[in-house]
């Protein structure tokens, strides 16, 4: 589906899809989660999350719903669609192949 995304953009897409795979999250929570899990290694400029989120929404991989947060404010919660779940599997597999290949190259030479 669609054109193959370039590495950086594709990686951000993968991170977003993976982050909301378990439960719907709003933009702020997605940014926090990515930061936490990667132990602050992946420092995404937080704003650049939003163009990516809207692009994924246009591709119908994620959908959004306004809901209340635990602090009682209205926020937009993103969750995976069926197509998004498939895309996640594909991109995860791709990533796995790519990283192990790079590992292989880096370690053997």
């Amino acid at each position, binding site marked *: 589906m669609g054109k193959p995304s370039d590495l950086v953009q594709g990686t951000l897409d993968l991170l977003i899809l993976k982050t909301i795979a378990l439960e719907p999250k709003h933009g702020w929570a997605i940014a926090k989660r990515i930061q936490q899990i990667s132990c602050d290694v992946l420092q995404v400029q937080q704003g650049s999350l*939003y163009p990516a989120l809207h692009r994924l929404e246009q591709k*119908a991989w994620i959908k959004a719903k306004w809901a209340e947060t635990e602090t009682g404010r209205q926020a937009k919660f993103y969750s995976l669609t069926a197509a998004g779940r498939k895309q996640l599997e594909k991109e995860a597999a791709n990533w796995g192949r790519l990283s192990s290949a790079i590992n292989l190259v880096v370690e053997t030479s």
Partner: protein
Amino acid sequence: MAWIHKLWIRLRSLFRRGRFAKELDSEIQFHLDELIAENVDAGMSPEEAKYAAMRGFGNSTWLKEETREAWGWMWLEQIGQDVRYGFRVLSNKPGFTAVVILTLALGIGANAAVFSVVNSVLLKPLNHPKAEELVALHQAAPGAAGLADFHNGLLLSPSMYFTYAEQNRTFQSVGVWITGTANVTGLAEPEQVRTAEVSDGVFQVLGTPPEVGRWLSAADQIPRGSETVMLSHGYWQRRFGGDRAVMGRNIVVDSRPREIVGVMPKGFRFVDADFDLIRPLAFDRGKLNLAGFGFHGIARLKPGATIAQANADINRMLPIWMDSWSNGPGQNSHIYEQWEITPMIRPLKQEVIGNVGELLWVVMGTIGLVMLIACANVTNLMLVRAEARQQELAVRTALGAGWTRIVRGLLVESVMLGLMGGAIGVGLACAGVRFLVTIGPANLPRLDEISIDARTLGFTLVVSVLSGLLFGLIPALKYAGPRPSLALRSAGRTISVSRERHRARNLLVVGQVAMALVLLVSAGLMIRTFEALRTVEPGFTDAQHLQLMRISIPYSVIQEPERVARTQHGVLDKLAAIPGMQSAGFVSEMPMEGFEPGWDEIFIEDKVYSADLIPPLRLYKYISPGFLQTAGTRLVAGREMTWSEVYSQQPVVMISENLARETWGTPSAAVGKHVREFSNMPWDEVIGVVQDVHEKGLQERAPEIVYWPPLVRSPFVPVVRTVTFVMRSERAGTEGFLNEVRQAVWSVNSTLPLASVRTMQEVYGKSLARTSFTLVMLGIAGAIALTLGIIGIYGVISYTVSQRQREIGIRLALGAQGGDVLQMVLRQGAKTALVGVAIGIAAALGLTELMRSLLFGVSPQDPLTLASVTALLILVALLASYIPARRAMRVDPAVALRYE
């Protein structure tokens, strides 16, 4: 399914952009608030926390734009912005905008109008079911001298029709038809109506169902069978008020009652012929021979059959035709092989359009050139505008607009101009089409079908957008192209203007001059054609004082040939008594009147003919004594016949000068010689030789003609029953005169209707209609082109002068004389014009070849026309440069240099 969902998302983001934008704002605000809260928790002051959060988040305006772009409608939003911006810019300069829109509206309107004519006449299929299968059975016969001379080629004979209809392998159906006239009596006044006579098969070929009743069927074609007739829609409305009960009623046509069986719908024609009544031809098979080539053949091809196959099929059938029929016992049926009859079947549409196609394409091309010239002028205006807007563009570039965005903005502006011009142009075209239809040549086919339809509107839209792109692209690329900007340098006041910056404008003017030259040369060639036609002696004189009318005396009214002639003679005597009548006579048909003349083999005394060598066909006419003098046709040698010779059936005949010269060398040598129509008839003595007459129009060669007296000893046509009466009088065409003429005719026989009442001038004018129509169209186009060209040259030269004011000031300060400056500017104008003229001449030499068929007596490369148009254009160019040159001469060096 997935794509529907995606489409839904896309459309939602298009139509709810406003709400989406608000949601995005609150989404980002929420994120920032959370970030600030976190920072405050980490111990920052609220102020510090806010700035840290904004830093951490990034440029939110830019990010919002990025996000909106992700919705995929950014291009549309930007074009919307461009359109709004364009409107503001254009309404800021109402004068400029109005001039541009009007120029375009004129150009586009003229193009749309002419295109609607081209579309309706040339492009749209004929108004019959599956019209692409329809063909005209056209035949060439180079061996049949005069018969195939005119555009009809060799028409079909009835026996040919039967052979083709019964033996063919490539047609679904075949039919023949002719036009004629008939007298209808018993309704109101006796009336002469136009008829179409059709064989079986004609309706099956055309396929258009009747509006009421039924077609004429095979049963109606039985000779001396039931007498039936069909009506045209127009005649049905006019005479019977569209009453359906009229089916089955009888009307009296040529004194015979005929039953009305059907009505054909509005707009139905036989090829290009209009009619009132349709009668069956009802050929009597038993009496047919090979000859009688007088019928138009049409056919419907079998699905998939090609014209080449059909031609081969006719070729195969021609020998069958010659074997199956004869011209009588002892006659060689294969003499027609000498005629080299060659089938040249063509699409019926081509037959309908006739020779008007070339004319319309020439007019279309002309109007297209005018449009290009108009575009060139608008481009020039746009260039000047763009120059003035450089600062604005530089500011926009400095503020971060990409050059593609600026070019797009400029193009949106010019396309908007084009569309507005187009919108007004469609309105003009509607009026223009009405105008064209009224001034159009009377013989323009399918005139009633001309309308502005969807295709014309589409064409107009395309022309509008294309012209917008055309005149917008040059300034846009020139001033907004990617280049290290001149930036905000102060308006270039002190920059002397380089040659390079004028190149585009000069090129445009060169193009304009070249195109104007082509148009003026075409118009000039038409003027020369008109002049050449005026010098042709048509074979009659003083056409506006010649009154014509047609009178037919049917067999049912008067049977005996001699009584017919005496009645016609009686009418002449009554006419001669009308006050102001100089003389009167009659003839079987006047030149250019549009009635088919007769052709026959004419045998010449002392020439040896064998069964295999048939004499060439000659056109023949019947004339009354006194006709030649009335029409103003000169007698070259010998004398006219007299009424006593007519009644006593003296074997006398007159011939045309060219026939006399061809046969006996000189006109006077022909007098006293003999000719005859059939090999078994007595000889007729040539008593007079008559000036050549341009029978089919001034552009056509005058044919060789034989003039019989109205009463002849022929077994076939002993007397000519339908004739054109010709009267010479100063009062011709006036109402009072015509009333007296009618009374004179009815005092002889009250049942005779008068038809085709008109002056010879009307007939003559119609034959010139094509030429004068082309002349008017090209004249208008040439005048517009010349005007636009003058404006173009004037604009460029005066703009250059205003830009070079300081330079001229310096020259004058350094001692140049006013005359030098004048010369310098004039030289520039002349140079531009000369280059344009040179290119124009080259183009004209090629392009005018396309209008060769419209010309007469002048070569498409006529040196006189070329030279005078060239001189005119150079003179006009010098005049147009003279005004700005005078201004340049008067530049005050002190004023010009004050600001340096």
